[in-house]
Protein backbone atom coordinates (compact mmCIF):
# COMPACT_ATOMS: atom_id res chain seq x y z
CA UNK A 1 0.00 0.00 0.00
CA UNK A 2 1.21 3.48 -0.84
CA UNK A 3 0.00 6.48 1.15
CA UNK A 4 1.25 9.26 -1.13
CA UNK A 5 1.78 7.90 -4.59
CA UNK A 6 2.64 11.30 -6.02
CA UNK A 7 5.56 11.77 -3.63
CA UNK A 8 6.68 8.16 -3.28
CA UNK A 9 6.59 7.10 -6.93
CA UNK A 10 7.71 10.37 -8.47
CA UNK A 11 9.84 10.28 -11.57
CA UNK A 12 13.43 10.72 -10.35
CA UNK A 13 14.05 13.75 -12.58
CA UNK A 14 11.02 15.44 -11.17
CA UNK A 15 12.21 14.50 -7.68
CA UNK A 16 15.61 16.03 -8.41
CA UNK A 17 14.01 19.32 -9.46
CA UNK A 18 11.97 19.32 -6.26
CA UNK A 19 15.06 18.56 -4.13
CA UNK A 20 17.07 21.30 -5.86
CA UNK A 21 14.36 23.85 -5.22
CA UNK A 22 13.96 22.80 -1.60
CA UNK A 23 17.70 22.82 -0.97
CA UNK A 24 18.03 26.36 -2.37
CA UNK A 25 15.24 27.47 -0.09
CA UNK A 26 16.84 25.75 2.91
CA UNK A 27 20.26 27.23 2.31
CA UNK A 28 18.87 30.72 2.26
CA UNK A 29 16.88 30.13 5.45
CA UNK A 30 20.01 28.77 7.15
CA UNK A 31 22.14 31.68 5.97
CA UNK A 32 19.77 34.37 7.14
CA UNK A 33 18.31 32.76 10.27
CA UNK A 34 21.02 30.59 11.87
CA UNK A 35 24.25 32.35 12.89
CA UNK A 36 26.06 29.00 13.17
CA UNK A 37 25.47 28.21 9.50
CA UNK A 38 26.01 31.78 8.28
CA UNK A 39 29.45 31.70 9.87
CA UNK A 40 30.20 28.34 8.25
CA UNK A 41 29.08 29.57 4.82
CA UNK A 42 31.12 32.72 5.17
CA UNK A 43 34.19 30.78 6.22
CA UNK A 44 33.77 28.58 3.16
CA UNK A 45 33.15 31.61 0.95
CA UNK A 46 29.71 30.44 -0.09
CA UNK A 47 26.83 32.81 -0.83
CA UNK A 48 23.32 31.39 -0.67
CA UNK A 49 22.83 32.39 -4.31
CA UNK A 50 25.77 30.18 -5.37
CA UNK A 51 23.81 27.05 -4.57
CA UNK A 52 21.65 25.83 -7.41
CA UNK A 53 21.14 22.15 -6.61
CA UNK A 54 21.99 19.03 -4.71
CA UNK A 55 25.03 18.25 -6.87
CA UNK A 56 26.71 20.99 -4.82
CA UNK A 57 25.87 19.36 -1.49
CA UNK A 58 29.35 17.87 -1.29
CA UNK A 59 30.81 21.38 -1.07
CA UNK A 60 28.56 22.48 1.77
CA UNK A 61 29.49 22.24 5.45
CA UNK A 62 28.37 19.19 7.42
CA UNK A 63 26.74 19.21 10.85
CA UNK A 64 27.95 16.95 13.66
CA UNK A 65 26.39 15.88 16.94
CA UNK A 66 29.03 18.01 18.63
CA UNK A 67 27.62 21.10 16.85
CA UNK A 68 24.26 20.42 18.49
CA UNK A 69 25.96 20.12 21.84
CA UNK A 70 27.88 23.34 21.27
CA UNK A 71 24.66 25.17 20.41
CA UNK A 72 22.59 23.56 23.15
CA UNK A 73 19.68 23.85 23.55
CA UNK A 74 18.11 26.04 20.83
CA UNK A 75 21.10 27.50 18.98
CA UNK A 76 20.41 25.76 15.67
CA UNK A 77 16.74 26.66 15.48
CA UNK A 78 15.87 28.61 12.33
CA UNK A 79 12.65 30.19 13.61
CA UNK A 80 11.81 32.24 16.72
CA UNK A 81 10.88 30.12 19.71
CA UNK A 82 7.29 31.42 19.41
CA UNK A 83 6.95 29.37 16.21
CA UNK A 84 8.13 26.17 17.90
CA UNK A 85 5.21 24.05 19.10
CA UNK A 86 7.05 20.93 20.28
CA UNK A 87 10.41 19.93 21.67
CA UNK A 88 11.91 16.47 21.71
CA UNK A 89 15.29 15.25 22.85
CA UNK A 90 17.33 12.13 22.55
CA UNK A 91 19.74 10.94 25.18
CA UNK A 92 23.10 12.20 24.09
CA UNK A 93 25.85 9.61 23.93
CA UNK A 94 27.75 11.82 26.31
CA UNK A 95 26.73 14.86 28.27
CA UNK A 96 23.77 16.94 27.26
CA UNK A 97 20.75 15.66 25.33
CA UNK A 98 20.27 16.38 21.65
CA UNK A 99 17.29 18.68 21.16
CA UNK A 100 14.84 18.88 18.27
CA UNK A 101 12.35 21.75 17.79
CA UNK A 102 9.25 21.43 15.60
CA UNK A 103 6.92 23.98 14.07
CA UNK A 104 3.29 23.17 13.23
CA UNK A 105 4.35 22.44 9.65
CA UNK A 106 7.14 20.14 10.88
CA UNK A 107 4.64 18.09 12.87
CA UNK A 108 2.47 17.81 9.73
CA UNK A 109 5.46 16.63 7.71
CA UNK A 110 6.38 14.13 10.42
CA UNK A 111 2.85 12.69 10.56
CA UNK A 112 2.95 12.46 6.77
CA UNK A 113 6.16 10.43 6.65
CA UNK A 114 5.02 8.13 9.46
CA UNK A 115 1.70 7.64 7.63
CA UNK A 116 3.71 6.66 4.54
CA UNK A 117 5.80 4.31 6.69
CA UNK A 118 2.79 2.56 8.19
CA UNK A 119 1.16 2.12 4.77
CA UNK A 120 4.44 0.72 3.47
CA UNK A 121 4.26 -1.87 6.27
CA UNK A 122 0.71 -2.75 5.24
CA UNK A 123 -0.94 -0.98 8.16
CA UNK A 124 -4.20 0.93 7.63
CA UNK A 125 -7.26 2.32 9.39
CA UNK A 126 -8.53 -1.14 10.25
CA UNK A 127 -5.50 -1.79 12.43
CA UNK A 128 -5.10 -1.40 16.17
CA UNK A 129 -1.64 0.04 16.65
CA UNK A 130 -0.04 -0.68 20.01
CA UNK A 131 2.72 1.88 20.56
CA UNK A 132 5.25 0.64 23.12
CA UNK A 133 7.87 3.23 22.26
CA UNK A 134 8.30 5.61 25.15
CA UNK A 135 6.10 8.71 25.10
CA UNK A 136 7.93 11.80 26.16
CA UNK A 137 11.06 13.51 24.99
CA UNK A 138 11.92 10.40 22.98
CA UNK A 139 10.55 10.77 19.45
CA UNK A 140 9.44 7.14 19.13
CA UNK A 141 6.13 7.23 20.98
CA UNK A 142 4.57 10.46 19.79
CA UNK A 143 6.10 10.09 16.33
CA UNK A 144 4.42 6.78 15.56
CA UNK A 145 1.30 7.93 17.40
CA UNK A 146 0.72 10.95 15.13
CA UNK A 147 1.24 8.97 11.95
CA UNK A 148 -1.01 6.14 13.06
CA UNK A 149 -3.68 8.66 13.91
CA UNK A 150 -3.26 10.28 10.49
CA UNK A 151 -4.05 7.05 8.64
CA UNK A 152 -7.06 6.54 10.90
CA UNK A 153 -5.80 3.50 12.77
CA UNK A 154 -6.87 2.87 16.36
CA UNK A 155 -3.92 3.91 18.51
CA UNK A 156 -3.09 2.46 21.90
CA UNK A 157 -0.57 4.83 23.51
CA UNK A 158 0.89 2.13 25.76
CA UNK A 159 4.34 3.74 26.05
CA UNK A 160 7.20 1.79 27.65
CA UNK A 161 7.30 -0.29 30.81
CA UNK A 162 4.78 -2.35 32.74
CA UNK A 163 5.28 -5.24 30.37
CA UNK A 164 2.76 -7.68 31.79
CA UNK A 165 0.01 -5.11 31.65
CA UNK A 166 0.95 -4.31 28.05
CA UNK A 167 0.58 -7.96 27.13
CA UNK A 168 -2.80 -8.07 28.83
CA UNK A 169 -3.92 -5.01 26.87
CA UNK A 170 -2.62 -6.43 23.60
CA UNK A 171 -4.58 -9.56 24.31
CA UNK A 172 -7.80 -7.90 25.45
CA UNK A 173 -7.86 -5.03 22.92
CA UNK A 174 -6.78 -7.21 20.01
CA UNK A 175 -3.74 -5.17 18.96
CA UNK A 176 -2.76 -6.01 15.38
CA UNK A 177 0.38 -3.88 15.12
CA UNK A 178 3.19 -3.59 17.65
CA UNK A 179 5.56 -0.61 17.51
CA UNK A 180 8.62 -0.80 19.75
CA UNK A 181 12.35 -1.46 19.73
CA UNK A 182 13.34 -4.92 18.47
CA UNK A 183 14.91 -5.78 21.82
CA UNK A 184 11.70 -4.90 23.62
CA UNK A 185 9.81 -7.11 21.16
CA UNK A 186 11.97 -10.03 22.30
CA UNK A 187 11.49 -9.02 25.90
CA UNK A 188 7.72 -9.06 25.36
CA UNK A 189 7.99 -12.53 23.83
CA UNK A 190 9.99 -13.78 26.81
CA UNK A 191 7.53 -12.28 29.24
CA UNK A 192 4.60 -13.89 27.41
CA UNK A 193 6.32 -17.22 27.74
CA UNK A 194 6.80 -16.60 31.46
CA UNK A 195 3.14 -15.74 31.81
CA UNK A 196 2.27 -18.95 30.03
CA UNK A 197 0.69 -17.06 27.14
CA UNK A 198 0.94 -18.37 23.60
CA UNK A 199 1.61 -15.46 21.18
CA UNK A 200 -0.80 -17.08 18.73
CA UNK A 201 -3.56 -16.04 21.12
CA UNK A 202 -2.79 -12.45 20.07
CA UNK A 203 -3.84 -10.82 16.80
CA UNK A 204 -0.49 -9.21 16.06
CA UNK A 205 0.37 -9.25 12.36
CA UNK A 206 2.93 -6.46 11.93
CA UNK A 207 5.78 -5.08 13.97
CA UNK A 208 7.17 -1.58 13.42
CA UNK A 209 10.60 -1.92 14.95
CA UNK A 210 13.38 0.62 15.11
CA UNK A 211 15.47 2.98 17.26
CA UNK A 212 18.32 0.49 17.55
CA UNK A 213 20.27 -1.66 15.15
CA UNK A 214 19.19 -5.25 14.68
CA UNK A 215 20.17 -8.17 12.51
CA UNK A 216 18.32 -10.39 10.08
CA UNK A 217 18.66 -13.26 12.54
CA UNK A 218 17.01 -11.18 15.22
CA UNK A 219 14.21 -10.37 12.79
CA UNK A 220 13.65 -14.07 12.18
CA UNK A 221 13.60 -14.79 15.87
CA UNK A 222 11.09 -12.01 16.60
CA UNK A 223 8.88 -13.20 13.73
CA UNK A 224 8.97 -16.79 14.97
CA UNK A 225 8.28 -15.85 18.56
CA UNK A 226 5.58 -13.23 18.05
CA UNK A 227 3.93 -14.56 14.86
CA UNK A 228 4.12 -11.26 13.00
CA UNK A 229 5.98 -9.69 10.11
CA UNK A 230 8.77 -7.53 11.51
CA UNK A 231 9.39 -4.27 9.60
CA UNK A 232 12.32 -1.94 10.05
CA UNK A 233 11.74 1.78 10.54
CA UNK A 234 14.52 4.33 10.68
CA UNK A 235 14.78 7.79 12.04
CA UNK A 236 16.62 10.09 14.37
CA UNK A 237 15.67 13.07 16.49
CA UNK A 238 18.16 15.38 14.81
CA UNK A 239 16.52 14.84 11.42
CA UNK A 240 12.89 14.30 12.54
CA UNK A 241 12.24 11.08 14.45
CA UNK A 242 10.94 7.71 13.23
CA UNK A 243 9.75 7.85 9.63
CA UNK A 244 12.84 9.15 7.87
CA UNK A 245 13.03 5.80 6.06
CA UNK A 246 10.95 2.65 6.13
CA UNK A 247 10.81 -0.83 4.66
CA UNK A 248 7.99 -1.80 2.34
CA UNK A 249 6.42 -5.26 2.23
CA UNK A 250 9.13 -6.46 -0.16
CA UNK A 251 11.76 -5.79 2.52
CA UNK A 252 14.49 -4.88 0.08
CA UNK A 253 15.83 -1.95 2.03
CA UNK A 254 14.38 1.11 3.68
CA UNK A 255 12.78 3.75 1.44
CA UNK A 256 13.99 7.22 2.32
CA UNK A 257 11.36 9.93 2.08
CA UNK A 258 13.68 11.92 -0.11
CA UNK A 259 11.35 14.79 -0.84
CA UNK A 260 11.93 15.81 2.80
CA UNK A 261 15.26 14.24 3.73
CA UNK A 262 18.01 14.32 1.12
CA UNK A 263 20.42 11.47 1.73
CA UNK A 264 24.10 11.18 0.89
CA UNK A 265 26.49 8.33 1.55
CA UNK A 266 29.96 9.68 2.20
CA UNK A 267 33.36 8.46 3.18
CA UNK A 268 33.48 9.16 6.95
CA UNK A 269 37.03 10.46 6.67
CA UNK A 270 37.07 12.52 3.46
CA UNK A 271 33.32 13.32 3.54
CA UNK A 272 33.27 12.80 -0.22
CA UNK A 273 30.30 10.90 -1.71
CA UNK A 274 30.83 7.19 -2.37
CA UNK A 275 29.21 5.40 -5.35
CA UNK A 276 25.84 3.68 -4.93
CA UNK A 277 26.22 0.27 -3.31
CA UNK A 278 29.36 1.16 -1.41
CA UNK A 279 29.48 1.44 2.35
CA UNK A 280 29.74 4.90 3.80
CA UNK A 281 28.29 7.19 6.43
CA UNK A 282 24.71 8.27 5.97
CA UNK A 283 24.23 12.04 5.89
CA UNK A 284 20.90 13.86 5.78
CA UNK A 285 19.75 17.34 4.85
CA UNK A 286 16.26 17.97 6.22
CA UNK A 287 15.27 20.38 3.45
CA UNK A 288 11.66 21.05 4.40
CA UNK A 289 12.21 21.29 8.12
CA UNK A 290 11.40 24.72 9.56
CA UNK A 291 12.23 24.44 13.26
CA UNK A 292 15.67 22.91 13.14
CA UNK A 293 16.74 22.24 9.56
CA UNK A 294 20.11 20.51 9.73
CA UNK A 295 22.35 20.62 6.72
CA UNK A 296 24.31 17.47 5.90
CA UNK A 297 23.84 15.97 9.35
CA UNK A 298 26.26 13.12 9.95
CA UNK A 299 24.27 10.21 11.36
CA UNK A 300 27.30 8.01 12.07
CA UNK A 301 25.31 5.15 10.60
CA UNK A 302 27.28 3.13 8.14
CA UNK A 303 25.13 1.88 5.32
CA UNK A 304 24.73 1.37 1.60
CA UNK A 305 22.18 2.98 -0.69
CA UNK A 306 20.55 2.21 -4.04
CA UNK A 307 18.26 4.27 -6.29
CA UNK A 308 16.95 1.29 -8.25
CA UNK A 309 13.17 1.26 -8.44
CA UNK A 310 11.66 -1.15 -5.93
CA UNK A 311 9.20 -3.93 -6.79
CA UNK A 312 6.61 -2.01 -4.77
CA UNK A 313 6.69 0.83 -7.33
CA UNK A 314 8.37 3.41 -5.14
CA UNK A 315 11.14 5.33 -6.88
CA UNK A 316 12.68 6.53 -3.60
CA UNK A 317 16.26 5.66 -2.74
CA UNK A 318 16.67 2.72 -0.38
CA UNK A 319 19.08 2.07 2.47
CA UNK A 320 20.04 -1.50 1.81
CA UNK A 321 22.25 -2.62 4.61
CA UNK A 322 23.12 -1.20 8.00
CA UNK A 323 26.61 -2.15 9.08
CA UNK A 324 26.65 -0.53 12.47
CA UNK A 325 27.58 2.95 13.50
CA UNK A 326 30.88 4.55 12.92
CA UNK A 327 30.92 5.37 16.61
CA UNK A 328 29.89 2.10 18.30
CA UNK A 329 32.69 0.35 16.60
CA UNK A 330 35.10 -1.19 19.06
CA UNK A 331 38.73 -1.54 18.26
CA UNK A 332 39.99 -4.55 20.13
CA UNK A 333 43.61 -5.45 19.76
CA UNK A 334 43.68 -3.44 16.57
CA UNK A 335 40.68 -5.23 15.12
CA UNK A 336 37.43 -3.44 14.32
CA UNK A 337 34.56 -5.13 16.10
CA UNK A 338 30.86 -4.41 15.67
CA UNK A 339 28.56 -5.82 18.35
CA UNK A 340 26.16 -6.78 15.54
CA UNK A 341 28.75 -9.23 14.26
CA UNK A 342 28.82 -11.02 17.59
CA UNK A 343 25.05 -11.06 17.75
CA UNK A 344 24.91 -12.73 14.35
CA UNK A 345 27.30 -15.45 15.48
CA UNK A 346 25.23 -16.14 18.59
CA UNK A 347 21.98 -16.25 16.69
CA UNK A 348 23.32 -18.55 14.03
CA UNK A 349 23.96 -21.04 16.82
CA UNK A 350 20.35 -21.87 17.44
CA UNK A 351 21.01 -22.80 21.03
CA UNK A 352 21.40 -19.27 22.25
CA UNK A 353 19.07 -16.34 22.67
CA UNK A 354 20.34 -12.94 21.67
CA UNK A 355 20.94 -11.94 25.25
CA UNK A 356 24.58 -11.17 25.48
CA UNK A 357 26.91 -8.47 26.68
CA UNK A 358 30.38 -7.54 25.57
CA UNK A 359 32.77 -6.46 28.25
CA UNK A 360 35.94 -4.91 26.96
CA UNK A 361 38.78 -4.27 29.36
CA UNK A 362 42.47 -3.58 29.18
CA UNK A 363 44.60 -5.64 31.50
CA UNK A 364 48.38 -5.37 31.40
CA UNK A 365 48.06 -3.34 28.19
CA UNK A 366 46.18 -6.12 26.52
CA UNK A 367 42.59 -5.72 25.39
CA UNK A 368 40.37 -8.43 26.79
CA UNK A 369 36.99 -9.18 25.28
CA UNK A 370 34.61 -11.11 27.47
CA UNK A 371 31.25 -12.15 26.09
CA UNK A 372 28.57 -13.03 28.62
CA UNK A 373 25.93 -15.26 27.12
CA UNK A 374 22.76 -16.19 28.90
CA UNK A 375 22.08 -19.91 29.12
CA UNK A 376 18.53 -20.66 28.08
CA UNK A 377 16.62 -23.82 28.89
CA UNK A 378 16.78 -25.12 25.35
CA UNK A 379 20.47 -25.78 25.49
CA UNK A 380 21.12 -26.30 29.17
CA UNK A 381 22.54 -29.79 29.53
CA UNK A 382 23.26 -31.31 32.90
CA UNK A 383 26.63 -32.46 31.69
CA UNK A 384 29.58 -30.19 32.32
CA UNK A 385 31.26 -31.54 29.21
CA UNK A 386 28.46 -30.36 26.95
CA UNK A 387 28.23 -26.97 28.56
CA UNK A 388 31.95 -26.44 28.20
CA UNK A 389 31.67 -27.69 24.63
CA UNK A 390 29.09 -25.02 23.91
CA UNK A 391 31.31 -22.28 25.31
CA UNK A 392 34.16 -23.57 23.15
CA UNK A 393 31.99 -23.61 20.06
CA UNK A 394 30.88 -20.01 20.63
CA UNK A 395 34.49 -19.04 21.17
CA UNK A 396 35.63 -20.73 17.96
CA UNK A 397 32.84 -19.17 15.90
CA UNK A 398 33.54 -15.70 17.28
CA UNK A 399 37.22 -16.10 16.58
CA UNK A 400 36.61 -17.14 13.02
CA UNK A 401 34.34 -14.16 12.37
CA UNK A 402 36.26 -11.47 14.25
CA UNK A 403 39.76 -12.78 14.05
CA UNK A 404 40.30 -12.20 17.75
CA UNK A 405 39.85 -14.42 20.75
CA UNK A 406 37.23 -13.82 23.37
CA UNK A 407 36.51 -15.31 26.75
CA UNK A 408 33.02 -16.78 26.83
CA UNK A 409 31.17 -16.67 30.11
CA UNK A 410 27.92 -18.57 30.42
CA UNK A 411 25.55 -16.79 32.76
CA UNK A 412 22.14 -17.50 34.24
CA UNK A 413 19.01 -16.40 32.40
CA UNK A 414 17.87 -12.81 33.02
CA UNK A 415 21.15 -11.75 34.59
CA UNK A 416 22.21 -9.43 31.77
CA UNK A 417 20.53 -6.13 32.33
CA UNK A 418 17.73 -5.38 29.88
CA UNK A 419 16.34 -1.96 29.91
CA UNK A 420 12.87 -1.90 28.47
CA UNK A 421 14.11 0.38 25.73
CA UNK A 422 17.58 -0.10 24.37
CA UNK A 423 19.71 -3.09 25.26
CA UNK A 424 23.05 -2.37 26.84
CA UNK A 425 25.27 -4.54 24.69
CA UNK A 426 28.71 -3.17 25.37
CA UNK A 427 30.61 -2.28 28.48
CA UNK A 428 33.94 -0.78 27.56
CA UNK A 429 36.06 -0.41 30.68
CA UNK A 430 39.09 0.76 28.80
CA UNK A 431 40.11 4.35 29.17
CA UNK A 432 40.98 5.28 25.62
CA UNK A 433 40.66 9.04 26.04
CA UNK A 434 41.50 11.45 28.87
Amino acid at each position, binding site marked *: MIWNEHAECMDREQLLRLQNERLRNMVSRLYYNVPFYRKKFQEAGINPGDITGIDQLKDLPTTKKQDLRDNYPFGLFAVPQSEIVRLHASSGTTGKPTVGGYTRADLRTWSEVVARSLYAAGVDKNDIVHVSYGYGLFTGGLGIHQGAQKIGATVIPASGGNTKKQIQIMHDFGSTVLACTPSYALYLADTMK*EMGMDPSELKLRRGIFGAEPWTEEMRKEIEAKLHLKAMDIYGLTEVMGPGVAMECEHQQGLHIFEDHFIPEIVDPVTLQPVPYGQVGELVFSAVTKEGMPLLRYRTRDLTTMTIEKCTCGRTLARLTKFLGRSDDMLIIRGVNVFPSQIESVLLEMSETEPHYQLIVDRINNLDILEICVE*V*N*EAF*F*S*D*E*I*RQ*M*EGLAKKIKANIESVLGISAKI*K*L*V*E*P*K*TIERSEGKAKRVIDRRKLID
Partner: protein
Amino acid sequence: MLLKQLSVFLENRPGRITQVTKVLDEIGVNISAFSIADTSDFGILRMIVDNIDAALQALKAQGFSVRTTQVVGLVVPHQPGGMHQALEHVDKAGIEIEYMYAFAYNSKAAVIIKADDTLKLVNVLTESGYHVLQEGELMHE
Protein backbone atom coordinates in the same frame (compact mmCIF):
# COMPACT_ATOMS: atom_id res chain seq x y z
CA MET B 1 13.03 -48.23 37.37
CA LEU B 2 14.60 -44.88 36.50
CA LEU B 3 14.75 -41.86 38.75
CA LYS B 4 14.11 -38.33 37.59
CA GLN B 5 16.85 -35.99 38.64
CA LEU B 6 16.50 -32.22 38.77
CA SER B 7 19.44 -30.18 37.40
CA VAL B 8 19.88 -26.43 37.84
CA PHE B 9 22.37 -24.19 36.04
CA LEU B 10 24.15 -21.85 38.45
CA GLU B 11 26.77 -19.20 38.03
CA ASN B 12 29.61 -19.28 40.51
CA ARG B 13 28.39 -16.45 42.65
CA PRO B 14 27.86 -16.22 46.38
CA GLY B 15 24.37 -17.09 47.55
CA ARG B 16 23.18 -18.90 44.45
CA ILE B 17 22.74 -22.29 46.09
CA THR B 18 20.85 -20.70 48.95
CA GLN B 19 18.47 -19.16 46.38
CA VAL B 20 17.64 -22.65 45.14
CA THR B 21 17.22 -24.21 48.59
CA LYS B 22 15.08 -21.24 49.63
CA VAL B 23 12.67 -21.85 46.75
CA LEU B 24 12.43 -25.55 47.63
CA ASP B 25 11.95 -24.74 51.31
CA GLU B 26 9.11 -22.35 50.52
CA ILE B 27 7.15 -24.97 48.61
CA GLY B 28 7.96 -27.75 51.07
CA VAL B 29 9.99 -29.95 48.74
CA ASN B 30 12.36 -32.39 50.41
CA ILE B 31 15.79 -33.16 49.00
CA SER B 32 16.97 -36.76 49.26
CA ALA B 33 20.25 -36.45 47.40
CA PHE B 34 22.26 -33.49 46.25
CA SER B 35 25.51 -32.86 44.41
CA ILE B 36 27.28 -30.06 42.61
CA ALA B 37 29.49 -30.28 39.56
CA ASP B 38 31.52 -27.13 39.22
CA THR B 39 33.82 -25.35 36.82
CA SER B 40 35.54 -22.01 37.36
CA ASP B 41 32.59 -20.06 35.99
CA PHE B 42 29.49 -22.09 36.56
CA GLY B 43 28.14 -25.15 38.30
CA ILE B 44 25.39 -27.66 37.83
CA LEU B 45 23.39 -28.60 40.85
CA ARG B 46 21.82 -32.05 40.73
CA MET B 47 19.15 -33.27 43.11
CA ILE B 48 16.73 -36.04 43.81
CA VAL B 49 13.61 -34.53 45.37
CA ASP B 50 10.23 -35.82 46.52
CA ASN B 51 8.11 -33.57 44.27
CA ILE B 52 10.02 -32.90 41.10
CA ASP B 53 7.16 -31.27 39.18
CA ALA B 54 6.54 -28.67 41.88
CA ALA B 55 10.27 -28.03 42.22
CA LEU B 56 10.69 -27.63 38.47
CA GLN B 57 7.84 -25.19 38.19
CA ALA B 58 8.88 -23.10 41.18
CA LEU B 59 12.50 -22.83 40.04
CA LYS B 60 11.49 -21.94 36.49
CA ALA B 61 9.22 -19.24 37.82
CA GLN B 62 12.24 -17.79 39.61
CA GLY B 63 14.11 -17.64 36.32
CA PHE B 64 16.48 -20.57 36.78
CA SER B 65 17.51 -22.77 33.88
CA VAL B 66 16.25 -26.15 35.02
CA ARG B 67 15.87 -29.55 33.45
CA THR B 68 15.23 -33.17 34.39
CA THR B 69 17.47 -36.09 33.57
CA GLN B 70 16.87 -39.80 33.92
CA VAL B 71 19.33 -41.46 36.23
CA VAL B 72 19.69 -44.80 38.00
CA GLY B 73 19.49 -45.10 41.76
CA LEU B 74 21.49 -48.15 42.73
CA VAL B 75 21.08 -49.54 46.25
CA VAL B 76 24.26 -51.11 47.62
CA PRO B 77 25.14 -52.70 50.97
CA HIS B 78 26.35 -50.00 53.35
CA GLN B 79 29.65 -51.71 54.08
CA PRO B 80 33.22 -51.77 52.76
CA GLY B 81 33.35 -53.02 49.16
CA GLY B 82 29.62 -52.61 48.70
CA MET B 83 29.82 -50.07 45.91
CA HIS B 84 32.99 -51.53 44.43
CA GLN B 85 31.42 -54.89 43.66
CA ALA B 86 28.46 -53.27 41.95
CA LEU B 87 30.71 -51.10 39.80
CA GLU B 88 32.69 -54.08 38.64
CA HIS B 89 29.57 -55.37 36.93
CA VAL B 90 29.11 -51.99 35.27
CA ASP B 91 32.70 -51.95 34.01
CA LYS B 92 32.45 -55.49 32.70
CA ALA B 93 29.38 -54.54 30.66
CA GLY B 94 31.34 -51.68 29.06
CA ILE B 95 29.01 -48.95 30.31
CA GLU B 96 30.48 -45.48 30.56
CA ILE B 97 29.56 -43.50 33.63
CA GLU B 98 29.05 -39.76 32.98
CA TYR B 99 28.89 -38.88 36.65
CA MET B 100 27.77 -40.32 39.97
CA TYR B 101 27.20 -39.34 43.53
CA ALA B 102 26.32 -41.32 46.60
CA PHE B 103 24.24 -40.91 49.72
CA ALA B 104 23.20 -42.98 52.69
CA TYR B 105 19.67 -43.28 54.01
CA ASN B 106 18.33 -45.25 56.97
CA SER B 107 20.83 -48.10 57.16
CA LYS B 108 21.24 -48.32 53.43
CA ALA B 109 23.44 -46.65 50.84
CA ALA B 110 22.59 -45.61 47.31
CA VAL B 111 24.52 -44.34 44.31
CA ILE B 112 22.98 -42.08 41.67
CA ILE B 113 24.50 -42.88 38.30
CA LYS B 114 24.20 -41.12 34.95
CA ALA B 115 25.54 -43.38 32.22
CA ASP B 116 25.81 -43.30 28.45
CA ASP B 117 23.32 -46.15 28.25
CA THR B 118 20.95 -45.90 31.17
CA LEU B 119 18.67 -48.79 30.24
CA LYS B 120 21.58 -51.15 29.78
CA LEU B 121 22.88 -50.07 33.17
CA VAL B 122 19.57 -50.94 34.82
CA ASN B 123 19.49 -54.34 33.13
CA VAL B 124 23.07 -55.17 34.12
CA LEU B 125 22.45 -54.21 37.72
CA THR B 126 19.14 -56.02 38.15
CA GLU B 127 20.49 -59.14 36.46
CA SER B 128 23.38 -59.05 38.93
CA GLY B 129 20.87 -59.01 41.76
CA TYR B 130 21.01 -55.35 42.72
CA HIS B 131 18.02 -53.27 43.62
CA VAL B 132 17.51 -49.99 41.72
CA LEU B 133 15.36 -47.32 43.27
CA GLN B 134 11.88 -46.71 41.86
CA GLU B 135 10.34 -43.29 41.41
CA GLY B 136 8.93 -42.24 44.78
CA GLU B 137 10.55 -45.07 46.67
CA LEU B 138 12.69 -42.80 48.80
CA MET B 139 9.59 -40.93 49.96
CA HIS B 140 8.09 -43.98 51.58
CA GLU B 141 11.20 -45.12 53.37
